[in-house]
């Protein structure tokens, strides 16, 4: 589904991603972990098409197409969904009209007729139940005045409505209490099929108790320095990132060591 090869990007001349290789297949869940400032959110943004980042080298192939060639809205319509770390507020625009516009854009792209208001409301009701969000939320302006937890649940709610092929969740767990975390994770699990894939970006192993990843990657200093299974996440929880930092810094100096 997604194949990233030697991806390098920079912002204002500063290199952030320094050669990422990653392959994600349908049905898989990948977790990307790593210390602050290692480039996790940059990777998510670049995949979604945020143009403040300049891609200097490498390729990203999505379903056999050059992803980097597509505009953000076309990427979205082709099934890429980004769950924002900091969801954006749009005053005066109701969630309902925002989402109806979004859903109908997706449908137009698939040559489907737009949903009628009543059909849309019906679908919205179903999805709201799935992610256990307050039903008044859709009458409010997009993310305006939402609590941190509501904002994150709202991201999963949008994901449920748009049914993406590849969902990239950027620290969706940060700022959530344990109940909200469970709800968000349940939402992700319920939406999981053999045809779609999820990339979960997180700081903490905690989320992975609920969303079980097939692969765990550690991103450090713009590179994926370690890939493993769920066990790697446990090890990180226990030992922190320092040993990985050291290992990788030494590797960079040409020494092959294991700490």
């Amino acid at each position, binding site marked *: 589904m997604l194949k990233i090869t030697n991806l390098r990007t920079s912002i204002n001349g500063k290199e952030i991603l320094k050669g990422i290789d990653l392959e994600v297949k349908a049905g898989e869940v990948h977790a990307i972990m790593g210390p602050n400032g290692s480039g996790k959110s940059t990777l998510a943004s670049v995949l979604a098409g*945020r143009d403040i980042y300049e891609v200097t080298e490498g390729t990203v192939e999505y379903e056999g197409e050059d992803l980097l060639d597509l505009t953000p*809205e076309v990427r979205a319509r082709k099934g890429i969904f980004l769950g924002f770390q900091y969801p954006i507020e*749009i005053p005066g625009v109701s969630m309902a009209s925002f989402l109806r516009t979004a859903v109908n854009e997706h449908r137009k792209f698939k040559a489907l007729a737009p949903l009628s208001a009543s059909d849309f409301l019906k679908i919205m009701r179903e999805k709201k139940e799935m992610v256990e969000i307050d039903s008044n939320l859709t009458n409010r302006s997009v993310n305006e005045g939402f609590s941190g937890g509501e904002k994150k649940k709202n991201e999963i709610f949008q994901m449920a409505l748009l049914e993406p092929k590849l969902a990239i969740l950027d620290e969706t767990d940060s700022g959530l209490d344990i109940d909200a975390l469970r709800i968000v994770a349940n939402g992700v699990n319920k939406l999981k099929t053999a045809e779609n894939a999820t990339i979960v970006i997180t700081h903490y192993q905690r989320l992975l108790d609920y969303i079980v990843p097939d692969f765990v990657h550690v991103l450090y200093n713009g590179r994926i320095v370690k890939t493993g299974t769920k066990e790697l996440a446990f090890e990180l929880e226990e030992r922190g990132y320092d040993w990985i930092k050291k290992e990788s810094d030494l590797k960079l100096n040409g020494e092959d060591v294991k700490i």
Partner: protein
Amino acid sequence: MSEIQDDILNEVTSGEYKYGFVSDIDTETIPKGLNEDVVRLISLKKNEPEFMLEFRLKAFRFWQTMKMPKWPHLKIPEINYQDIIFYAAPRQQAKYASLDEVDPELRATFDKLGIPLDEQKILSGVAVDVVMDSISVKTTFKETLAELGIIFCSMSEAVKEYPDLVKKYLGTVVPYTDNYFAALNSAVFSDGSFCYIPKGVRCPMELSTYFRINAANTGQFERTLLIADDESYVSYLEGCTAPMRDENQLHAAVVELIAMERAEIKYSTVQNWYPGDKNGKGGIFNFVTKRGICKGNYSKISWTQVETGSAITWKYPSCILRGDHTTGEFYSVAVTNNYQQADTGTKMMHIGKNSKSRIVSKGISAGRSNNSYRGLVKVMKNAENARNFSQCDSLLLGSKCGAHTFPYIEVDNQTAKIEHEATTSKIGEDQIFYCNQRGISTEDAVGLIVNGYVREVINQLPMEFAVEAQKLLQISLEGSVG
């Protein structure tokens, strides 16, 4: 983003003004220029009673002693009044017994504008008065309204048929001495709408006037007078369009509203005069004086305006809150693009006790335009417990436009409560990207965000107008992203 921005901005500026066509209608005009004889000629052409001619002449003489004010935040080229035609009328006379007699070209014009003239075909239940150049062409639903005692007709008709009402109220809210353009209008006004709602009557339909400038080199000076007697209610709509012409055309109207005890007047405008081309050539100068008086206790006047057209817009629809417990409201969306300029806002004069006013102004600037809000809230000595809330927001699209706010507050009574909020914002790239990421194109995202921004004002408009206004906003701003 900036490259896309430029592309889209280019697209906007090449966007066509939809109402820019010229109708081929045989028009009777008088020679260019302005002097006392021209004023007399206009009055003569309209078969006016003596008192009107006197009113005009007094106004004209006063105007000659005045100079155009220089205080607005506008660049206004010199206006040569000797180069303007002050009276133009479709040749076929304006008295039609039935629609079949109306010039087909004229009917086609209004079809193109989407104005329903044919009463049988009107489903929306809007009574329409249509003013083309200097003359009211057709007023619909007159008979239905007459049954309730409501008078809704052209101003020229009112001058002849209801001279007492006209004499009693004309110029009482906006005297000809009020300002330069009010004086000019009082001297040369050609037509407009007149409306009287009798005591206790709730007008069952929206009353509406469509103004259209068609002839070249003409000015349009219409005069609207609306009186709502005790405990009556009326909602009034006004729409305006004009052909694309290279020269600037002057539109200097006067609107006077009078609300008696417990009466309510809701006055909505969707102004879409030709704004000029992308280089700022041509377009209408929209210099209008609009004022209402809440004369009786517990009366209410509400102005709602959506201003998207005109090269220059210069107007302050205002309320004199003379009665006790009166309410004045002003809801405004003013959009400027390319080289358009706007200096608009309101004046709320609190005279009565417990009078309330509310101002919600939303300015949107794009291109190289300049958009100013100017407002005065004045609380007089005896206005115990006056209250005002003002909110003035500016939205900038692009980096070459300007937004300015000039609020004036004068309070002479200690019990007054005045609140003023103001914000200036740009559409954030992060907002656009958020929409993009949900599959919404940049173009549609801007539309969505702008419509969200103006929602509070648009909600004040009657349904049919709200839809029209939303479309208009989308067209005038098509893609101008910041």
